[in-house]
């Protein structure tokens, strides 16, 4: 969804400026740290779930408790992303 929103053609110069501030400007470190942490938070449960699939028979199971590590990653990642999104939306001067 974030990728879709960023890659769509933006109707106004204000939106383009806000997206630039979020991804390459003042809020880029919050934005990219948020994306990376979110991605890690999403991949960790996938690894645990993949181990449960029938085709993975013979491969040692990963305990579901390992996926708890995704909780702080997902929470922090989203908080950082939201900070970048909300701040960038207000960063473009109105006049």
């Amino acid at each position, binding site marked *: *969804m*974030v*990728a*879709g*929103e960023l890659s769509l053609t933006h*109707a*106004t110069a*204000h*939106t383009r400026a*806000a*997206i630039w501030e*979020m991804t390459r400007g003042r809020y880029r470190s919050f934005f990219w740290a948020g*994306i990376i942490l*979110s*991605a890690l*938070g*999403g*991949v960790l*449960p*996938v690894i*645990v*779930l993949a181990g*449960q699939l029938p085709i993975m028979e013979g491969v040692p199971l990963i305990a*579901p*408790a390992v*996926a*708890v590590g*995704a*909780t702080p990653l*997902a*929470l922090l990642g*989203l*908080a950082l992303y*939201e*900070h970048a*999104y*909300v*701040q*960038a*939306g*207000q960063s*473009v001067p*109105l006049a």
Partner: protein
Amino acid sequence: VAFIWWRALLVLFGFMGLGNSLWITVAPIVSAVFLGITGGLLIWDLEHPMRFFMIFTHSQWRSWLVKGAYVIAAYSLVLGIHLALLVIAISKPDLTFSILRWLVFPGIILSALTAVYTAYLFAQAKARDLWQSPLLPPHLLTQALLLGSAVLLPFAVWNGSFNEPVGYLSFPRPGFPLLWMLAIATLLHL
């Protein structure tokens, strides 16, 4: 800023069985805590916090701030009833379960509305073009599912939801659907 993702935490319904403590106790208590924080922040952020009650006594129905306040109030009521039923459950467990089962429906709708109404509030800030995205409502709903499942996950491990059916109304191993929800919501959000 922070209240946006705190609010997203409020959607803490899952597809575990009705007998599971994740839904019976953990989700409503965590929801009530974060709803209280959200309400406090919203009131503190007003220009005149002491006049917050005027949102309800002089409602301006075109404002999503007002509509959101009513959504939050309605969801608080559902959570309040749920928590009150937990006390009654000590003496009348059967009655409590039958009411809680029906409370799921307004709970799901109101928790989703609580998470999503911010998109409409943002859309009313016409000068902020970034926030005019029609993707914002599904975006916030996905975030709510992500955060709800992320918060419940440690509790699911703790209460044995990955091991075996818990309670006679439970789905088997409800921790796994929760893990699927976290994985799908997190990756979909990206």
